[in-house]
């Protein structure tokens, strides 16, 4: 109970600071995923076409995924220095696997019959991709972005160790003061909340983009 009161006091005194760090934290995670998406989606499409390359790409991204986050940050720090950009680079690397894998799976799982009929209608390769494959694979790709974002939010917490700020800074401070339970919670709760909300939000988007939803699907595919 005491901890709850302390927690309340903490937020009452520091709400502007917490909000600042929350915003920073979210931006870092979002940028990491965004940049990864810019690279990973085309790569995913490419290896879906050239399946023999997929083995190499996946082993590479798998290796990245096995590196512990703290080690990754430490190594990147040697190259890129301290600060948020290094964290974004780490998140970028961690986001590659889920996005590439989901793009690959999504594109590969498009019904061959549909592609054939598209081709039969005289669509070019690009038109096939844009009008048939991408719309059908979109919800799977979104699921990849969703995983990447949730992982990103959790890893960004560690970024505070290399001076990037974010909610992790609050948690680390909580571990440094005498009785920091409330401060640790004050940093951990918004982080968890952000991950849950991001997961729900992306899940909702993913559902909206399901190929089954015929009507809105047309609009959505146009918007892509």
């Amino acid at each position, binding site marked *: 109970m005491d901890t709850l009161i302390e927690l309340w*006091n903490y937020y009452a005194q*520091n709400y502007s*600071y917490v909000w600042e760090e929350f915003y920073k934290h979210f*931006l870092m995670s979002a*940028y990491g995923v965004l940049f990864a998406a810019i690279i990973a989606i085309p790569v995913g499409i490419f290896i879906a076409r050239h399946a023999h390359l997929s083995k190499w790409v996946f082993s590479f991204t798998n290796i990245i995924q096995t590196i512990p986050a703290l080690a990754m940050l430490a190594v990147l720090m040697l190259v890129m220095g301290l600060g948020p950009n290094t964290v974004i680079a780490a998140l970028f690397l961690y986001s590659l696997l889920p996005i590439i894998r989901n793009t690959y799976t999504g594109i590969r799982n498009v019904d061959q019959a549909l592609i054939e009929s598209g081709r039969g209608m005289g669509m070019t390769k690009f038109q096939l991709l844009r009008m048939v494959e991408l719309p059908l694979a979109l919800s799977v790709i979104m699921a990849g972005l969703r995983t990447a974002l949730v992982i990103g939010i959790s890893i960004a917490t560690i970024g505070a160790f290399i001076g990037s700020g974010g909610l992790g800074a609050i948690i680390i*401070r909580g571990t*440094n003061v005498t009785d920091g339970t409330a401060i640790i919670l004050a940093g951990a709760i918004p982080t968890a909340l952000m991950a849950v909300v991001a997961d729900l939000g992306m899940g909702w988007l993913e559902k909206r983009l399901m190929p089954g939803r015929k009507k809105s699907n047309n609009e959505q595919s146009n918007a892509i």
Partner: protein
Amino acid sequence: MFHKQKKYLIIVLVVSLLVLNGCSLPGLGGSSKNTIKIGTLNTSESMTVAYIIKQLIEHKTDYKAEIIGNMGSSIVQHQALEQGEVDITATRYTGTDLPGALNMDPVTDPDKALKIVQREFDKRFDQTWFDPYGFENSYAFTVTGDLAEEKNLEKVSDIEEYASDLRLGVDNAWLNRAGDGYQGFIETYGFEFGKAYPMQIGLVYKAVESGEMDVVLAYTTDGRIEEFDLVNLEDDKQFFPPYDASPVASNDILKKFPEVRDILELLEGKIEQEAMRRMNYEADVKMKEPAVVAKEFLQEHNYFDNE
């Protein structure tokens, strides 16, 4: 078809803009040209002072300042500054950096120590070590207010006659440290305590308050000294080297942004021991964030606008 293409164009434009912006992402400040980076230790004290500098820079100039926090030790701060990772380090202590960064013997006279670090940092690293803020985060033998009153203790020498009955709680590292460790203490003061217990530095305050220990070796700016009504005993034989805190900045940044020099000079002697202890108390015990504590400090002093 036409408007679809337009949409593509917009998307491509936005994406490429974002990529081009890679170095200073909107919302994050990043490493853009007019950002001054301030390095801090992972202590509340260091962070509070860093936020004071940051907010003062942003209040008085158009530059942005960014905190690079949570550096593990003074050596890490020193290296970050050397390699240009940060432009200013918020708190550097004479007693730490003399043997640390400079690899020289500790000097017990505060003025001499300051002169040496100022000269050497300028010569060896092309950095400016400013005059102290006015507080000193040193070790001090600390007792409860009650005990101090009862036995009339003011200086460390005053303990001598009771020492053999007293329990001493100290930092793990200090017990076996050469130079200014326990052995050195015994040689300088000529007495030892009944029993010395090694413990984590963070626990000594509670230990002495609750009566588990009679005397502890504490940090002089710790907020808990105030909270628990503890008293620091004066180091009358100048056994501990001085730990006056100053900012250190690279000369490059001072040339590039001359206003930064004015701001750091403005803070000389402005943060006194009592004030720092109170701010540590707010941050460590009252759970205010250093950013908030710093803001209140500056508001209280009106951002030193009248000086």
